[in-house]
């Protein structure tokens, strides 16, 4: 039996996708034990790889700092009196979300096997992620609550209801952009909004399409960045301009990456005439900025 149809399309491999695949295929059999037991584990995801991608390619024109999302998350967790075990890329591997959705099941299975073993060794009870894609992958595709009995939370759910207080450096109008993985797939719409409500001096407005009807940022699983997906993104950014916001907040580093990329590109090419007069930020970055002002 042979394939009668040739592949009509191939999946592009950005640099950091190649890095993750190489990482996944290098088997790491060494045992590992954390220095002391932790209840919470924090999984930063592939933000380091994203920074590598941004620095070595033309994407984002170089000023985005994704690793600051991880730093901000850890700071916020400490502020909420949580001492998390950092499940970083030295010990763990990428959660494999992109590989799964690109159809690379072999890579995903290798990543999953490694991460499941490490999670068993780590002895944590709750894993929290600042990335909506990792959250969905751990909860649904790994099925951690069912297999290892580890509760999976998005960081907004962890921080929700812990009596945190924030103060914005100046009065801002913000809007929350629902990531598809956190919103439509996992059904969490309220926790990020509750967190934004806690910020003193931040006025939250809803974009035209919100919650389960939220528009997509245009790229998922790093597959295509072309004119059509940019049009999807522009439509979403236009809604932000219509709402008159100063900041758009996202719950997923990927949304942040793609949106900020588009905004930067517009700024680099002002002759094209598309301009959105605001910034995109991850929710964690925004909250930390509000935290430091209070201190």
């Amino acid at each position, binding site marked *: *039996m*042979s*394939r*009668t*149809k040739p*592949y*009509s*399309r191939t*999946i592009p491999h950005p640099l950091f996708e190649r890095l993750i*695949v190489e990482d996944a*295929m290098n088997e790491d059999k060494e045992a590992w034990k954390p220095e002391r037991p932790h209840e919470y584990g924090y999984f930063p995801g592939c933000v380091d790889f994203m920074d590598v991608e941004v620095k070595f390619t033309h994407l984002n024109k170089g000023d985005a700092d994704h690793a600051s999302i991880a730093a901000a998350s850890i700071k916020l967790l400490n502020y909420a009196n949580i001492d998390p075990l950092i499940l970083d890329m030295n010990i763990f591997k990428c959660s494999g979300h992109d*590989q*799964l*959705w*690109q*159809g*690379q*099941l*072999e*890579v995903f299975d290798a990543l999953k096997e490694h991460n499941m073993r490490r999670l068993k060794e780590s002895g944590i009870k709750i894993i929290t992620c600042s990335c909506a894609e990792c959250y969905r992958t751990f909860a649904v595709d790994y099925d951690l609550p069912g297999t290892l009995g580890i509760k999976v939370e998005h960081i907004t759910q962890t921080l929700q209801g812990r009596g945190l207080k924030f103060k914005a450096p100046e009065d801002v109008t913000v809007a929350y952009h629902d990531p*598809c993985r956190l919103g*439509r*797939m996992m059904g969490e719409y309220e926790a990020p909004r509750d967190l934004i409500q806690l910020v003193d001096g931040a006025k939250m407005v809803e974009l*035209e*399409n919100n919650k*389960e*009807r939220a*528009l*997509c940022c*245009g*790229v*998922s*699983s790093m*597959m*295509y960045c072309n004119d*059509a*997906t940019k*049009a*999807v993104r522009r*439509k979403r950014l236009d809604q932000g301009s219509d709402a008159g916001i100063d900041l758009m907040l996202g719950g997923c580093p990927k949304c942040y990456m793609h949106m900020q990329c588009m905004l930067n590109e517009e700024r680099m090419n002002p002759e094209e005439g598309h301009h959105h007069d605001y910034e995109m930020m991850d929710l964690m970055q925004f909250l930390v900025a509000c935290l430091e002002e209070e201190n």
Partner: protein
Amino acid sequence: MTEDNPSEVVDDDAIEMIYEHQEEQISLDTVNKLENREDHSVLEADMVKGEPLYPHEMTRDAVLTLYILALFFYLAAFVPPPLHKAADPTAGTAFPPPLPDWYLLWAFGCLKVATDLKIGLPLSLIPFLGLEDIEIFLMTAKVWGTLVQGLIVGLVVAVPFLDRALGALIDPQYGDVVNRGHERRPIEDPVRAAIGVYGIVMVIMLSIFSINANIAIYYPEVTTDVLNQLTIWGPIVAGVITYVFLDRRRSEGAKPLTDEERFSLYVDGIKDRRMQRIYEFKLNRCYQCGLCDDICPVRDMEGEHELNIIYNTFQNEHDGVAMWSCITCGMCTAVCPQNIEYIDYVLEQRALTTSGASL
């Protein structure tokens, strides 16, 4: 050449002008479409175009009604009904007895099956009191047989109201029927299908039971007792067989494919009946409302015409574009009235297509 025939020159020019005009129109349409994107989307669409009741429908219906009325008046005035001979009260009872119309035989059967309803209290079993057995008479066979008919019709009326409660009792997952919608095919809901078959067979058996006297003329061995047993057990056996058969088919259809089957599915498309069932289970709730299409951001930006994503995928008619340009944002599932998880299907298809080729 062109000087000999000036009309041709004009024709060429005209054709060029027409082309230019058409191109202008197309570009204008595209610009308009991009500028008025909202109009194209279900998010803002609040009106459905159609024909108004008045005057369109009203006029047509009035003409038809008056025409038929005129016909009745004509017939009543000029064609009187024929009169037959007067009835003879001295005529003997007919045998075999006359029967009601076939569609009322089940009601007739109810009347025949029913007996007098009594409750017997065996008081003589209580020692030392010397009481006698009492029999309480509840209702006669006539009343009971008539009430049973009303009971059956009432049950049919009550089904939509009882359905969800009973369904939730039988199958706890059935509780979210409000979001999920009903299963439309018997194979997806064996319990309800079995109850339906039980009812249909019951009506047929009651109808047969009601003509027992007529049957006895031709087949003396089919006695009333045999028919009685058939009326009780026939529907039950039919219902159980239906349930067992459908349940087996369901579990067979829900089984995942083996690697070999998946591969042949990619190469040859869906041919095997069993594989087809698996895809039906995912997508066959689609009733082509097109909401997914209206909301899909990819189609909004890329597609010129309607893709009808979910339906075309179910029909295996998508050209592969939907598979790889899908950004898996899940908006189609969010608006889908049947909650079809289209992105799960996309995930499966991508894994199928790239299996072994990703490294």
